[in-house]
């Protein structure tokens, strides 16, 4: 774990750049994180990111793509348009959450 400066703030990140402290995240930071990976946030993007944040609080783990579609009500196809190629990983990165654990 190390410190990184994002949008002029010091935050804790892991070796892949994912934020590790839920409370350190703000929407302003999310916007900067999105820009880091070439994404300009729109309302549609925020709908997904806000779902991720809420679901993480409720379930204690980063939701999978399937869960964002089933419980968050956003079609998988749309998620691929909003967050091209690696939506699960990119959403978690922007939302300041750990990488989804589906990969075991």
């Amino acid at each position, binding site marked *: 774990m190390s410190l990184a400066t994002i949008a002029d703030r010091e935050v804790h990140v892991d070796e892949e750049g994912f934020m590790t402290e839920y409370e350190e995240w703000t929407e302003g930071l999310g916007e900067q994180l999105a820009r880091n990976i*070439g994404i300009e946030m729109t309302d549609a993007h925020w709908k997904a990111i806000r779902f991720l944040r809420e679901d993480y609080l409720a379930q204690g783990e980063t939701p999978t793509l*399937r*869960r964002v579609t089933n419980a968050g009500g956003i079609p*998988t196809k749309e998620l691929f348009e909003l967050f091209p190629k*690696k939506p699960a990983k990119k959403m978690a990165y922007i939302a300041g959450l750990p990488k989804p654990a*589906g*990969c*075991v």
Partner: protein
Amino acid sequence: MKRLLVLGAGTAGTMVANKLRPRLPRAVWDVVVVDQEPGHHYQPGYLFIPFGRYRPADVIRPKQKYLHRGVNLMMGEVDLVEPELSQVRLVDGTVIPYDYLVVATGTTPRPDQTPGMDGSGWRTNVFDFYTLEGAAALAERLSSWEGGRLVVHITEMPIKCPVAPLEFAFLADTFFEERGMRDRVDITYVTPLDGAFTKPVAAKRLGGMLEERKIALEPDFYIERVDNERQMIVSYDEREIPYDLLVTVPLNMGADFVARSGMGDDLNYVRVDPGTFLSTKWDNVFALGDAADLPTSKAGSVAHFAAEIFIENFLQYIRGGEMTHRFDGHANCFVESGGGKAMLIDFNYETQPLGGKYPLAVVGPMSLLRETTLNHWGKLGFKWVYWHGLLPGRKLPVPTLMSMAGKTPEIAEIETREKEMTR
């Protein structure tokens, strides 16, 4: 009389019932196992069926025979668990009350969950090999296949035995080589992961093994549908991969009754504490093996190590004590790599598969993350161990928790992947 009710007589359910029976006094405890199939399948054997090395009869034995005397096996299909009432309803209307419940109903491939997968090409040029029927049908097809584009595909993680699709690709390479037709077959390995495997060091090693065998890798592929007419798999981001023969691992899901009973996550896996397997909602419900939502591989080895921890904890728990043992996510598996060789991987929740040596009594150290003939014999010999050691509940000479003995950490090899993500 108290009752321990186990749902499922697969690897986890059989082991738990057999290990607990002698340690629970018969005058006080009734141990009941419910299952709907009479045959116990040695599932690791499915892998060898498509290539004609095992026949279906080699991997099935009667479930009853592998349960200790004193364990009551009831045949029936579970309709619903009613955890608030501590009872289970079967489809035929039977109601079974329990004091403690262990859900061990595993995970099942569900081709019906991907549009077109079980369509007109199903078991003609679209096959699975995670069912006995699928593996046998594929053996038939491969025996007369003249070559073309073979696509080996994983729908979504997690899947049972996550190394099996890689093993399938390696064995296919050897199979076509031996038949003198490797030059007439293109093999592509298609995965939703960003590399050949889940953890970085193993992903790199296994990725290299695909390359050596001229097997193309298509990562980050999240399937939307199978187009049977055009013989293509299509991803959500509209990539298309053509096939002549598609060997797919369909979406894996836990049993439907788990969802009906309000016990599961989005894929019907029972939510449990990853250290003790106790349900996060009910204090007399556990889930073991593939049925649980553990953040580790779905594999027989995990079920085995988890069962060892569970038994000791359970005996403390029913006496009102605290459960003092915690599972670390330990998994190990032989990865068959073709040409009479295999490699061995050993890992847990925290430690990814590393290189080095795996200490083992009698046969001597086995090589980790490296292909050897000894590992191949280990893989084949495990079938005997499974029937005669593992299922009967005998203690095997391997540690329950993962050990770092012999392993070589290669943290330096882990590359930062942030850059890769932005591509």
